């Protein structure tokens, strides 16, 4: 098997043998469920949709993605297994991508666990699946960006606590940039709005898949993962 897949598989299995994965899934389902049912029981809403869920989810993802990514490389450094990993015939980028894929798979499982919500909605009325599929795709893209940033932060420390706090800070900043600049004009505001994840998420979740948005997520993932790979290989310079 490809070394990337082998590393990803080990990482994913490790997160399910420890309690981390279960805690992340349980917390996300609790909060997502709360959001979902509040919307359903809200008397003012007459149409069947998951709009509240998808407007709030990016914010919660900024908390949850760091919880998934915090240990990826920090734990390898703390337990000294990184020294072994770095001396195997595997490139640093393969290690980083393997870790990232494991985290992304876990996130996909977490998001997949919320699928009973729209399914139960569909069973009681006429549900427009378009925005829902768009919303899930948008969350996956957004989650990839957050997780990649988390991998980079995790490569910089051996302390998981530091990793989760710094990643949370970065993701939160990426998420709120756009809102801070939303009432201003000018080049700086434009740039801030482009760097921010929120606008891009809204586009995708409306079902509009624009190459600019894809390029945006791809760039964040690529830059962060390359950064992590450089951090790992700096020892060899």
């Amino acid at each position, binding site marked *: 098997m490809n070394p990337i897949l082998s590393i990803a598989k080990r990482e994913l299995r490790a997160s399910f*043998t420890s309690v981390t994965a279960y805690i992340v899934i349980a917390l996300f389902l609790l909060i997502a469920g709360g959001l979902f049912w509040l919307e359903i029981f809200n008397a003012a809403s007459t149409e069947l949709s998951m709009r509240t869920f998808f407007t709030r989810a990016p914010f919660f993802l900024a908390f949850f993605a760091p919880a998934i990514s915090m240990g990826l490389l920090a734990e390898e450094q703390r337990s000294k297994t990184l020294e072994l990993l770095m*001396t*195997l015939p595997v490139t640093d980028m393969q290690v980083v991508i393997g870790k990232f894929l494991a985290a992304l798979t876990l996130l996909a499982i977490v998001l997949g666990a919320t699928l009973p919500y729209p399914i139960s909605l569909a069973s009681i009325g006429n549900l427009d699946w378009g925005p829902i599929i768009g919303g899930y795709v948008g969350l996956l893209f957004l989650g990839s960006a957050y997780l990649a940033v988390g991998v980079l932060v995790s490569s910089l420390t051996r302390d998981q606590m530091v990793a989760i706090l710094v990643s949370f800070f970065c993701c939160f900043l990426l998420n709120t940039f756009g809102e801070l600049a939303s009432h201003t004009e000018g080049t700086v505001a434009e740039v801030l709005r482009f760097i921010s994840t929120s606008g891009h998420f809204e586009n995708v979740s409306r079902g509009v898949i624009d190459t600019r948005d894809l390029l945006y997520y791809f760039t964040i993932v690529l830059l962060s993962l390359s950064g992590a790979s450089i951090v790992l290989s700096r020892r060899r310079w």
Partner: protein
Amino acid sequence: MSKAETTIEVRDLTKYYGDFQALRGISFDVHRGEIVGFLGPNGAGKSTTMKILTCYMAATTGTAKVMNIDVTTDSIAVRARIGYLPESVPLYDQMVVFDYLDHLAELRGVPSSKREAAVTHAVEVCGLGPVVAKKIDELSKGYRQRVGLAQALVHSPDVLILDEPTSGLDPNQIIDIRELIRSIGKEKTVLLSTHILQEIEVLCDRVILINGGTVVADGNFDELYAAHPAAERNLEKLFRLLTASNAPTPVAPKAAAPVDASKYLPPESNAAPSTESSES
């Protein structure tokens, strides 16, 4: 021995950690079929040299080749040919022993058709049979050390680099591991570091003694004792003679490569700050 293929070739390695110079120009050769003991006080540069040979870190200057491949220009090819047991045994505590070895064999490029046989063989030679289905964090220190050794040889590498392979083992386990290393050393190259001088005497064909980042002695026991009569054919005395801070200036020992004798003069102070963990 000079006819045998050179498997490790180290030339003028230096390494700085910030301002501290850990290696001050180390050169040596190791050949196929040799078990070489890498000896020296804590902080002498043993682990640093091993980390450079295994491509974990880069040297500041100098070259190192394994199987005639340069560690900096083709690091992946070097890494495919070595097995490495670092000083702190790198284990994933939550994994089952078999899965751990299988994972490492896979990453080390053992094809899937041969992997089960390779893992079974490593389990057998390292005496891991009774614990193969256990989680690693349930194991005793001796078993953990042996799992670490098993991952280093699961892909039957040409060169084995072992940083204190017998630390934490009881006398029976030490004897078993020595037997194992001896049988591997017949066909492969083994470079091992240890603080147990007796181990070097019973296991190694040759000794490379380093102190303060330089090689202070390199040769088989007869050569070393002939060069240093004051040691009275006693490795402990030789070690004290060449590495204690009040040691007299050593005579330039026999070296694998033609070298300038002035390089072997000891540094100003041998009480260099330790860069390795201080356990011994």
